[in-house]
Each structure stands twice: as structure tokens, then as C-alpha cells.
């Protein structure tokens, strides 16, 4: 074993799977082709509510190449899942338009598609209700919001404080439904072998899929193996198993052959989740110096009839700014709509659009610089829980960001800077994202040739997890990354938390460090002698994480935007985005920067383009493809950069890291909207910022 002079954690390292990804050798789920394969094409419901009365299966199985057509009338039975979305083809009920009601299996993709298209379905349709509105009689208070936060919080007397405040903002903001749209559609290859099921699946968490699906199919968990070496993005939509995985496994069981299934891009707008639309009312009251006396943030959201997904929209408001009087709340209505799910920074992304827009409005109302306003309201401890922050460097991000961006001489007057046809403006917003860590297991092995193998059912959805874990393992084992092979993406490996909540690296890294530490100790005891059979250790971090001290743990950041708005057409272009983040220790500057700017790019897209439009008449998302649901393209993204403030926080995990996958999208849309106000004098409170809202 060699002693590494410089730690690899903190140093730049190219992605380990880079060569495979640029040569096309990296295989994603659908690219596994077992022998004797058949193709499954699922069939979506064309009503938003009601029942499937009958499906003419017989006609379709006569068609060329068709092996089977499956619906609730002939599908294998499943145990009742906790999430009714997964009870696929188990009942005639239709809960939303686009829900899978049948699947056709055929010899080729062409045959299966043709047959699925021709399937004749009779429905008993019922009137549907798909419109989210604040005064909907079905609005209710969920028991908690994701993942385990109280629904409502209140301190002091926010209403009286608001009435008494000399400077106030009372505004309602809205964010539309947005769809995750990872570039790789959700796909599964399902393969039964007796009582064993193997799934090549596009997932953010192999262990999660196994643990959820095994009971559904009545299997002991060890009989279900989920393999996902490479995943083409997920952004939250591949955390929970989606109906498509179940359909693939059911179809393979029914036909007794391996089956491949991919959700189409159009179907992804119904069956793979989305960010709930939100309507948010924010009330801020401040004294003449801009010190907040009251903060009220109320959110209204939707979920489907069959599953309660309660997004945590106002939770960031609980940690952002000091104020003695405060209230946050969430209300939910169940509609005949698809089930929402996590989408990059669920809660924080829409919630901070509202809060940070309101802060900008407060700055305007109080004639205070918006950077200074935020600094003035910096709390000494977590404003609601009272817990100390493990570290908090929002102020440093704001100050350093302002310096680099060139904020100092900003004239606050709106609508006065012109460059030809273009009106120019700048804006700022804060970012935050909680720092979680969950129990995981890992193993570490040394072979007589001096090579190390670390195994954990982690998932690399584009975050660079494989690379970060290699760096972490190399440092702990006091060796070089070249001697460490990190194996992930397989539920047969030690069980791990999914890639989500920006907690992957912190959770997996802790398990990897502990497994590698015991291997290193074991090797020291043997004076470095490796037995012929090799040496293996393992770790489980459940106790360590359960015992961690109570702190308020969050990453913070500041986002600065410069925009140009075409004074004739209302077109907005983002000229510059600069994000400064304080996210603990950065494990790999190269991949972390990509995560930050990737999140900011999605934030730009959220600000200007993204909106899933509900068709009230037919009850589905109307613009369900990339021609109509626009995401930022290359030409939309000009100058985006990120920097970070190094934090030395001993209260996090052995790496001292906070997670960088989501914070980049938080606050971006508000920074852009605030810049649009500065450019034009028009305050856009409803995303996205489209031309029609600026041209009046």
C-alpha cells in the first residue's frame, strides 16, 4: 500500500465511465438483450376518469407477431402495494388519462406498436376534475409533507405583525406543472428464471426497486435483482418504481419470455411523475430598515386520486431568514390527474421562486439593496427549530457573488438600461437545500494483486458518483484511484439509499469510508499481508447515522442573473448566470461544477420555458413532447458559471460534504424573474416568463 501525498477528495478527476460514455459502450437499461426476447408496448387510457368496460384482446392477438395482450381481465395478480400506482392492470378503474390499462407483447417493436395502436377499448367514462385552484372544495391539510416535515408551522403572531409592519409585500405566485424529462426514457428489461426475477432498469435506486417490487410479486427480496450500471438521468422521476417496471415484469411473467419495455416520451407526461403545479401566497412584513418582522408562506398543490404526494413547498422558508412571527402551510387537492413525484429540488425549487421573488419585492418597497436585505435578515440559528446550523455561509456566497458579478454599482431603477432594442437588468436570489444522510451498506475487498474492490448498490445517474466514491475509497485506503474499482448499480451489492435528495454521496460515502477503514485496519494488523483468498470487510451505517447530533444542516447559495428583454417582442434572454454555493467540502471540483451549472441550466429552463399545460377538456397534459414542452437548448444557455465557498463542517459525515445535485436549480428562476423586473419594471409572478406576460 502506498501513502498518497495529496488527498484525492478535493482534487479534480475525470469521470471513470467517461471513455465508455463517449464511445457508446456504456449500456443503459433498454440496451440489454437477453435471448428469446419479446417487446412490450403499454397502452394508455384515453379517458381521465371511469372504468375500462372491455378490451378486444382476441382481435389483437390475431395480428402478425403478437404473443399476448394483457389487461386487468387476464393479468397475473399482484399483492396490494402501498402505492396504488403500482397496482397496474389489477382493476378496471382509470384514475387519470394516460394511465396504463393494457400491454401488448410481440416479436418485434413494430408488431407490438401496431397492435397496441389497434387495440379496441370500451370505457364507462365519468366526468373529470383536473383544475387546481385555491378555493377548490377538495383542498385539505395532509398529515405531513415530503419526506417527513410538519404540514404547517407557526410562531408568534404573524397576522398582527403583518398589519403593523411599515413595509409589506403580499403577493401570490404560481409555478406550473413541470416534467422531469430525463433524456433516457424509463425503460426495463424483465427476465424471469423460475421464481427469480432480474430487471435491467433505468432507476435511481436498485435497492429501492427491489424492496418495493419483491413483495408485490410475492418474492423474497433475494430473488429479485435490479441491475442499472448506467442511467440516463432521472432528476427524481426514477426514485420510486413507476408503473412501467411493473408492467414489464408482469408481461414477462405472462408470456414466459424476457420482455423489453420503454415508456415513450409522450407517455412520460402521464406515467413517470412531474412537479406539482403550485399556487403560493407570500406575505412579508419588515421594519423601516428591512428587518423582517413576519413571514407567511402558504402553498396549494395537487396530487392524484390514487396516491398522496405532498410536496414540501414552503419548507425552505422555515430556514431562510430571521423573523419573530412566521407561518408556513401546505394544502393539497386530489384531482383526476397523474401522480406527481420528486423533481430536482422538490419543494425548494418552486418554494424559493416565491420567497425570493417576494424578497425582491420587499427590497423594492423598502428601497434597500436586495443583497443587503438578505444579509440583514441572516438568522443566528435555525429560525424555527432553534437548532444551531452545522455551517451556514449564505452571507459569504452573497458577498463573494456580488463581487464577482459586479453588483456594486447597480442602479436599482427598473426599465432604464437599454442596449439597442434590448432592456437590460440584473437580479439576485438565495438558494438552499437540506443536507440529509441515510443508512447504507458497503463492502471493501483487497486481493493479493493489491487491487481493491468496493461494492455498494449506489447509482450514477450522471452525478459522477462512481468517480467520487473512488476518490473517497482511495483516500481511506491510502492508495491511488487506479488501484480501486468501485462497483455500483446492482441490488446484489450491499444495500444502499437511492440517488436522491442530494444525499447519495454523503450516505454512500459514509458507508464506503467505514468499510474501507476496517479493511485498512485489518491490513495493518496483518502488516499488509493479503491472504490468497483476499480480504473483505463490510459496513452498515445505520447506528452511526441514528446517533448523529442534532443540527440544522443545509447548503446555501446565491444566484445572480443578467437578462436582456426584447422591448418589441418581449423575448427574454439570460445573458449571464453566476451561482455561488456553500456546500461543505467539494469532493470533485470538475463534476461538482457540472452539477451546479447543470442545476442552474435547468433553473433557467424553469424560468423561461417549462410548463406542462393541462387540457381541462380531455384531462391530460397537452404539450406532451419536446416539440411543445420546451427545455433549454444549447442556444438558450450563454454564460453560466459557478464558484463555491469552502466549508469545513465537522458535523456532516467523514467527507465533510453536503451534496450538490439540487441546490443549483434553487433560486435560479427567482434571480431571472427579479432581473426581468429590473430590466422592464414588470413583475412576473407566474412562471414561466413568456413573451405574452411581458408584452401588454
Amino acid at each position, binding site marked *: 500500500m502506498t501513502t498518497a501525498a495529496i488527498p484525492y477528495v478535493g482534487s479534480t478527476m475525470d469521470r471513470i465511465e467517461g471513455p465508455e460514455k463517449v464511445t457508446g459502450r456504456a449500456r443503459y437499461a433498454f440496451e440489454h438483450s437477453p435471448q428469446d426476447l419479446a417487446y412490450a408496448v403499454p397502452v394508455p387510457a*384515453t379517458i381521465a376518469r371511469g372504468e375500462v368496460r372491455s378490451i378486444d384482446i382476441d382481435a389483437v392477438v390475431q395480428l402478425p407477431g403478437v404473443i399476448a395482450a394483457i389487461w386487468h381481465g387476464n393479468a397475473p395478480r399482484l399483492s396490494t402495494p402501498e402505492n396504488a400506482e403500482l397496482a397496474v392492470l389489477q382493476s378496471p378503474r382509470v384514475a387519470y388519462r394516460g394511465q396504463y390499462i393494457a400491454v401488448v407483447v410481440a416479436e418485434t417493436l413494430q408488431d407490438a406498436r401496431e397492435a397496441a395502436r389497434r*387495440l*379496441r377499448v370500451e370505457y364507462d367514462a365519468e366526468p373529470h376534475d383536473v383544475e387546481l385552484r385555491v378555493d377548490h372544495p377538495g383542498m385539505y391539510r395532509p398529515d405531513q409533507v415530503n419526506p417527513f416535515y410538519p404540514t404547517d408551522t407557526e410562531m408568534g403572531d404573524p397576522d398582527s405583525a403583518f398589519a403593523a409592519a411599515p413595509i409589506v409585500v403580499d403577493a401570490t405566485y404560481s409555478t406550473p406543472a413541470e416534467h422531469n424529462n430525463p*433524456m433516457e*426514457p424509463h425503460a426495463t428489461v424483465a427476465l424471469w428464471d423460475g421464481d427469480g426475477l432480474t430487471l435491467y432498469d433505468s432507476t435511481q435506486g436498485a435497492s429501492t426497486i427491489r424492496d418495493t417490487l419483491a413483495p408485490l410479486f410475492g418474492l423474497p427480496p433475494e430473488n429479485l435483482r435490479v441491475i442499472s450500471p448506467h442511467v*440516463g438521468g432521472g432528476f427524481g422521476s426514477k426514485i420510486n418504481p413507476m408503473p412501467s417496471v411493473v408492467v414489464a415484469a408482469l408481461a414477462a411473467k405472462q408470456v414466459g419470455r424476457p420482455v423489453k419495455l420503454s415508456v415513450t416520451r409522450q407517455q412520460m407526461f402521464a406515467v413517470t411523475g412531474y412537479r406539482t403545479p403550485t399556487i403560493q401566497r407570500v406575505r412579508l412584513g419588515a421594519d423601516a430598515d428591512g428587518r423582517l418582522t413576519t413571514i407567511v408562506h402558504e402553498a396549494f398543490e395537487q396530487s392524484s386520486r390514487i396516491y398522496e404526494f405532498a410536496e414540501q413547498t414552503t419548507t425552505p422558508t422555515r430556514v431562510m431568514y430571521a423573523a419573530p412571527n412566521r407561518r408556513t402551510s401546505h394544502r393539497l387537492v386530489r384531482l383526476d390527474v397523474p401522480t406527481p413525484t420528486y423533481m430536482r429540488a422538490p419543494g425548494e425549487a418552486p418554494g424559493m421562486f416565491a420567497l425570493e421573488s417576494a424578497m425582491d419585492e420587499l427590497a423594492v418597497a423598502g428601497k434597500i439593496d436586495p443583497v443587503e436585505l438578505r444579509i440583514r435578515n441572516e438568522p443566528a440559528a435555525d429560525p424555527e427549530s432553534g437548532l444551531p446550523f452545522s455551517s451556514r455561509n449564505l452571507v459569504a456566497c452573497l458577498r463573494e457573488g456580488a463581487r464577482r458579478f459586479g453588483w456594486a454599482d447597480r442602479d436599482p431603477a427598473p426599465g432604464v438600461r437599454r442596449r439597442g432594442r434590448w432592456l437590460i437588468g440584473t437580479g439576485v436570489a438565495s438558494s438552499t437545500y437540506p443536507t440529509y444522510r441515510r443508512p447504507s451498506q458497503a463492502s471493501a475487498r483487497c486481493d493479493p494483486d493489491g487491487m481493491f474492490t468496493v461494492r455498494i448498490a449506489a447509482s450514477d445517474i450522471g452525478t459522477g458518483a462512481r468517480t467520487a466514491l473512488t476518490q473517497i475509497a482511495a483516500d481511506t485506503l491510502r492508495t491511488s484511484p487506479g488501484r480501486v474499482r468501485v462497483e455500483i448499480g446492482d441490488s446484489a451489492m450491499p444495500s444502499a439509499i437511492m440517488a436522491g435528495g442530494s444525499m447519495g454521496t454523503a450516505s454512500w460515502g459514509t458507508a464506503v469510508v467505514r468499510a474501507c477503514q476496517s479493511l485498512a485496519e485489518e491490513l495493518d494488523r496483518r502488516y499488509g499481508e493479503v491472504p490468497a483468498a483476499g480480504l473483505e470487510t463490510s459496513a452498515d451505517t445505520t447506528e452511526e447515522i441514528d446517533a448523529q447530533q442534532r443540527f440544522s444542516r443545509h447548503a446555501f447559495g446565491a444566484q445572480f442573473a443578467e437578462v436582456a428583454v426584447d422591448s418589441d417582442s418581449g423575448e427574454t434572454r439570460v445573458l449571464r448566470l453566476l451561482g455561488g454555493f456553500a456546500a461543505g467540502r467539494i469532493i470533485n471540483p470538475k463534476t461538482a461544477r457540472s452539477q451546479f451549472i447543470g442545476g442552474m441550466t435547468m433553473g433557467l429552463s424553469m424560468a423561461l420555458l417549462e410548463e406542462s399545460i393541462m387540457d381541462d377538456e380531455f384531462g391530460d397534459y397537452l404539450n406532451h*413532447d*419536446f416539440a411543445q414542452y420546451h427545455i433549454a*437548448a*444549447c442556444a438558450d444557455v450563454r454564460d453560466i458559471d459557478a464558484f463555491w465557498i469552502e466549508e469545513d463542517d465537522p458535523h456532516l459525515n467523514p467527507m465533510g460534504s453536503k451534496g450538490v445535485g439540487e441546490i443549483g436549480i434553487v433560486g435560479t428562476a427567482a434571480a431571472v424573474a427579479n432581473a426581468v423586473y429590473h430590466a422592464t419594471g414588470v413583475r412576473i409572478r407566474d412562471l414561466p416568463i413568456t413573451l405574452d406576460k411581458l408584452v401588454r
Partner: protein
Amino acid sequence: MKSEPNTPGQEVPVSAPVMVDLRLSVNRDSYPITVDTRETLLDTLRERLDLTGAKKGCDHGQCGACTVLVDGRRMKACLALTVTLDDREITTVEGLADGDTPHPLQAAFIENDAFQCGYCTPGQLCSAVGMLAEASAGWPSSVTADVTGEPRLDDEEIRERMSGNLCRCGAYVNIVAAIGQVAR
């Protein structure tokens, strides 16, 4: 409610699939193959030839993940029927490297971290190869100021010319840097 096919539209009578023999030339290898006339080049490559480098992101010509080169020009493989490509020279991401030596764009993508999940990457790379050839042949884009001269591939030109390839991970900044490094 009356029984209706799940996808509305004119009902065409069912007939057996029409199969055609042809010779497909991919990455300088020749494949004699019988294809269904409904089969797209993307499905032929991925499902029949085990060339899974080209990706399916939308199957509707809207994302660019399936971009390949046909006789050196970029083409969306999900929009091309294989039966039309007899005798054409097809290059996929698997064919960009020269043996073990990566194509300069492949090396630049790694160096600049021009991808995250990697799913759009094969399309970005093939598109970039085709785009550089278009530019050096003097083809202007909609942001080219002087359409008579040789276009200079600054960042704005690269962004414009690469906008048919979506990247949801948001790697555009690094993609433009990687291509710029090779182009200039």
C-alpha cells in the same frame, strides 16, 4: 361509450409486415439484413445490430439523441426508415474513434466534462462531427453575420448549430467548450 381503437386515425387493413433485403454499411462494416419496412434506422442499429451507441430519447426527431452520420451528414436515425438507406455509408458513435485512438471530440468531451448521464452524448458527438464538416464547407447558420465568407466558429455559432441536440443534464456550457477546443 363506443368501442374505438386506442389511437384514433384511419384504420388501415392489417397485412403481413413487408420485409426487404438490403445491405447496410455501418462504421465501414457491411451487414446483409432483412428489414421490416416500418423499421427505423435507430431500431435497426439498436435492436438488430447491437449498436446501442445511438440513443432513443423521443423517437420523434425532437431531441437529437439518435443523431448519426449518413454519408458524412448528420441525420436523426429515428426519422429515417432503414429500407431507404441501402448503399449509404452510416457512421455511429461506435465508429468515431480510430482504433484505440479516440476522436479529438471524444477526448475533448472527457477533458471538459461535457456530459453527465451520457445519454445525449453519442448524439452530441456525431452532431458535432457533422457540424464541423458543415462549417468547414462554408455553410452559414442563422447567426452567421457574413454569409459569403467562411463562418468562424465562435461560441455563438456553436450554440446555434448544436441546438438540435438537447441535454437535460445541462452540460451545454461544457459541450460548447469541448467543441470550441477542437474547432479552433
